[in-house]
């Protein structure tokens, strides 16, 4: 039996790094153009995995939670999601996760979703065993509220009897395993021991999980898996952008990891002290593939002169146009701009202007943390004003 295991579509998600919606006034700064392309990319990934399921002749597509970014996404997001789902020929099972729990506001029960929901799409909003096809059962552990007080998967497994002979059972759950995030205060953590035991005694044959955006497989039993999000959502994700094609029998699962995502979110930490460092950064940025679908987050540490800082600004501005986003992470950056004597000489000022520049240099001087950033900014401006005169 073959099915497609995916999760965390997070439809309706926006990434701040990709900028705001186009502001009413034509102000400088990033616009929402990348945001729109990113939203489309998430839908494209869904369509792609649907095509994949069709091609591989999967019995069903199991989405383990977080189909939508929130229960409160707009009707446009719902409508587009339904359109994407309608392009599938394979049946689809949608499990409510922590972002779209089956509470009173559940988007999967909303009239606009219900009206557009294609016939082959089933919402697993009631917990328990669902028969998908003869001999195939899905044990659903949907989220019914944002903050459940128990291990929902464990709850289902506890009440579960052994699978009837000849029937394959897939557990559909959402949440972190306790081994991945040993947070004692979180009551909803999934107890791995329980899952392993259920797999071991044949109550279930595969534990399809969601919530972790990175593709992950349990070390003890490769039938416990997170497929990860089909399109990257954050910089700290490991190997996102995949879906799992699972060939399952009563004893084992053969899992193929298939890539459907097109975007990349990259974080780059580097030191900047010399002109060479700047050139390396320039080269690294230039070497990134698919820049229009890449967001780069830079954490820069080091000390630059005024001139070098101006160079850095120019460099980042130039690359910023090519990338979906280039962001210098302020909280992880420690970039000091220190004027040096060469900078002062460059200015070639006389009279009171020279006196003023000297004062600003003195205020901005030193690489210590207490340096006057405003004075540095003023010096950079002076640099620019003098430069513009020539």
């Amino acid at each position, binding site marked *: 039996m073959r099915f497609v295991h995916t999760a965390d579509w997070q439809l*309706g*998600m*926006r*990434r*701040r790094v*990709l*900028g*705001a*919606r186009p*502001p009413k*006034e034509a*102000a*400088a*700064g*990033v616009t*929402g153009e990348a*945001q729109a392309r990113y939203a489309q990319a998430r839908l494209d990934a869904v369509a792609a995995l649907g095509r994949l399921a069709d091609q591989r002749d999967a019995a069903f597509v199991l989405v383990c939670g977080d189909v939508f*970014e*929130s*229960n*409160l*996404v*707009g*009707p*446009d*997001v719902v409508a587009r999601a339904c359109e994407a789902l309608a392009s599938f020929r394979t049946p689809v099972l949608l499990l409510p996760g922590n972002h779209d729990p089956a*509470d*009173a*506001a559940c*988007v999967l029960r*909303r*009239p*606009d979703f219900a009206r557009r929901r294609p016939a082959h799409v089933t919402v697993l909003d009631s917990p328990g065993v669902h028969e998908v096809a003869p001999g195939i059962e899905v044990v659903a552990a949907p989220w019914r*509220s*944002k903050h459940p007080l128990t291990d929902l998967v464990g709850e289902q497994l506890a009440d579960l009897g052994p699978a009837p002979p000849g029937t394959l059972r897939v557990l559909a759950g959402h949440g972190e395993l306790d081994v991945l995030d040993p947070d004692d205060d979180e009551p909803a953590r999934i107890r791995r021991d329980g899952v392993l035991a259920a797999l071991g005694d044949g109550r279930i044959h595969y534990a399809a999980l969601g919530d972790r955006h990175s593709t992950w497989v349990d070390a003890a039993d490769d039938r416990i898996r997170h497929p990860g999000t089909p399109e990257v959502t954050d910089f700290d994700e490991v190997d996102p952008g995949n879906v799992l094609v699972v060939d399952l029998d009563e004893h084992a699962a053969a899992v193929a990891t298939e890539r459907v995502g097109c975007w990349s979110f990259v974080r780059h930490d580097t030191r900047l002290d010399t002109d060479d460092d700047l050139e390396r950064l320039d080269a690294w940025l230039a070497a990134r593939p698919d820049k229009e679908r890449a967001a780069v987050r830079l954490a820069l540490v080091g000390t630059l002169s005024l001139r070098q800082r101006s160079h850095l600004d120019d460099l980042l501005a130039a690359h910023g146009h090519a990338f979906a986003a280039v962001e210098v992470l302020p909280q992880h950056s420690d970039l000091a701009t220190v004027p040096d004597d060469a900078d002062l000489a460059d200015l*070639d*000022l*006389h*009279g*009171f*202007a020279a*006196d*003023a520049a000297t*004062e*600003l240099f003195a205020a901005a001087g030193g690489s210590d943390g207490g340096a006057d*950033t*405003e*004075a540095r*900014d*003023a*010096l*950079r*401006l*002076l640099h620019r*004003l*003098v430069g*513009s*005169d020539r």
Partner: protein
Amino acid sequence: MRLHRIRLRDFRGVHDREVTLAERGVTVLQGDNEVGKTSTVAALDLLFDAADSSRRAEIRAAQPSGVDAGPEVEAEVSTGPYRFVYRKRWLRRPRTELTVLAPSSEQLTGAEAHARVSAILDETMDRVLWRGLRVEQHTAVGQADLGGQDALTRALDRAASGAVGAASSPRPDPSVDDGLVERAVEELRRYRTPGGRATGELRLAEVRRSAAEAEHERCRTALEAVERDVAVRDRLDADVATVRARRRAHAAEVAELEDRWSGLQSRLREVETARSRAVLARERADSARERRASRDALVAALGADADVVTRAAEALAAHEGEHAAARDERDARRAADTAARNEAGAARRRADDAARAVSAARDRAELADLADRLQRAEVARTGLAAAGRVLAATALDADDLAGLEDLARDLVRAEAARDAAAARLELTAPAGLTVLVDGTEVTLGAGETRTLPVAGSRALSVPGVLDVRVRPGLDEAGRDDAVRERQQALAERCEELGVAGVEDARVARREADDAERRAEEHRAALARELAGHGDATALRAAHDAIRDRLGEDIPEGDADVPALRTAADAARDAADQAARAADEAAAACRAAEDAVRDADTRAAVLAERAADARHAHARRAEELRAARAAEADADLADAEGERLARARDAEREHEALAAALADDDPDTVEARVVNARAVDERLGGEAVRLEREHAETTGRLQAAGLEGWHDQEAAAAAELEVAVREHDAVARRSAAAQRLHDTLARHRERVRRSYVAPFRAQVERLARIVFGSSLSLEIDEDLRITHRTLDGTTVAFGALSSGAQEQLGLCARLACAALVDPADGVPVVIDDALGHTDPERLARLGAVFTAATAADGAAQVIVLTCTPERYHGIGAATVVPLAPSRRPGEHAREREAPAAVVEDTPARTPGTVVDLPRAPRAG
């Protein structure tokens, strides 16, 4: 920059003129109005600024009218290391030519030449200062705007550095800080207004940020509301289930209680029935008792009635006695009354008789009195008539008597006077003797002495013995005459009056007076007697009336009136008493009559009462008989006893039932039933409320789902982050611009302040020549004179007189000219200034000009004037008189050109002007 010469051709009114200027010091261009002084300066500006292709209004205005030639200007200038000749012609065959003479010779034409000159000028001279140091015609010489002049600033910088002794570093490119502060200001103005408010980018960023914050807050609030609703829905789901379960559980309890309650209710009804029965039996017993009691009462009433009848008959009988007594009494009273009335009548008559007797007696007395009075009146009238007759006989009245008396007195006086004055004759006889005196015998006693007055002649004779005649003197005779006159008058009067003499008159008078008095007395008596009657006739009439009344019995003797009166009084008293007795008898009679009537009435009443009582008794007896016929007394008593027993039985039964019910505590059961129903109702209400809230919350959630709050919130959050980031960046740039500007401005201020000192020193040096050595000036950082202090009095610049402002303004410009580096210097052009300056100050200003231009390399000063005497005081001036430069055809109409004009060769001597003849110009 220095101007060596300027040549104008066909420029406004100037046909062709070249002016050569002194290279240093003052050049005064003097000439009449419209001779073209101002045109010379204007032409220089056009030469440097306007391309030969320009058709600016100034250029078109410079075109001479009616001449087919474009205006042309040529100037020879040295500036910096350069010296060049520059020529331009506009409008007709425009042309630009530049010949650079030093440092290396160059020849350029057209736009290239223009660009080259512009470059040279920009490089070597401060063109703003060039304009700033100029004083235009017709404008007040005020403060020159010197604050931003770079050449001056450099000069002052140099002076300041020199003043503080700092080694100024060489400045390979001194123009590098040109406009740096202005650019900093420009940069700052992108973010902040001069007032410090955010503007431009910063303002937009702030607006965007606050809008984003508001939007984000709005979305977040909405999201939280939805989340609250979700929680509410969950809670409501649970609550609805709880309420339903409780209602189900409660329903069983209600059913059980209701069963018990209905059982108790049927028993309650039984108790109620028993109670009604007992009450009914008790009522019946009561009615039997009442019937028996009423029979008893009837019997008793009959007895009472019989008593009443008896008592009424007794009363009637008793009254009959009283009745008869009353009638007897009445009859007696009537008899007494009649007797008393008769007695009273008799007494009255007696009293009347007595009164009449008294009256007659009184009349008689009065008649006698009246008769007396009549008699006395008659006597009085008779006396009165007699007196009247006497009075009528007497003619002498009182006045006549008084006249006589007067005359007699006069006589006596005259005689006395005569006697007093007369000689006296004293006769003394030693023995008795008789003598005749005037014929009268006078006997003298022995020793008697008699004195005789001698009045008139006296004849004394002792008869026979002696005759003596004594004659008075003359005076005595006069007196004797007076006496005789009076005697005569008296005698005459007496005769007139018919009296013998005075004595006689007096007697007559006394008699008349006595008659008068008697008449008066009689009149009084008459009046007294007639008093009350008017006159005698009336009196007599009264007398006659009384006499008539008395009639016959007039002389009834003297009746004793008081006795009669006493008798009359007694008779009247007796009559009164009798009348009173009669009245009392009548009253007693009336009382007796009343008593009889009362007794009659009472007898009637008593009779009626007795009849009533008899009737009542009869009726009652009939009633009792009828009642007894219907029901015997014994039957009534039996019925009463039987019904009372029955009532007691019924009451005992009810009490037994009620006690049995009370043991089962129906109140508690009822309270519980009522409570259970209320709980059920409340739970029902709770369920309805919960379902309503559930429906409302669900509705809100469905609506909220379609709002896409998550998308809105995410968008708002992204926008907020971008807005914050952008705002931070802009704010940082703004702060940097502010910091740079502040720092630059602060340093420039510091430098400027240091500039002020040398500038002030230079201005004061020049101004003291004009105003005296006590002058001091205050100058601000923009190098403007703010205050002048003279002889200890400080006055703001604006408050100074026009003349003083003009002089100080000129001093400031000349100070600039003296200060700036010769390489940077520009000519100071003064077009007809000092119109406000008095001759004394003008002379001093001449010294100022000289002092300002005395230094080696000091700037050129060019003065244009039509009143050369203003500038006569300038010692070092080179005076250039200007005459009209006209085309040859115009000479005939105008006076001859001055002799200084040389017709053919242009002079190259400074201070000369050449009015060139019109020469054919090269194409």
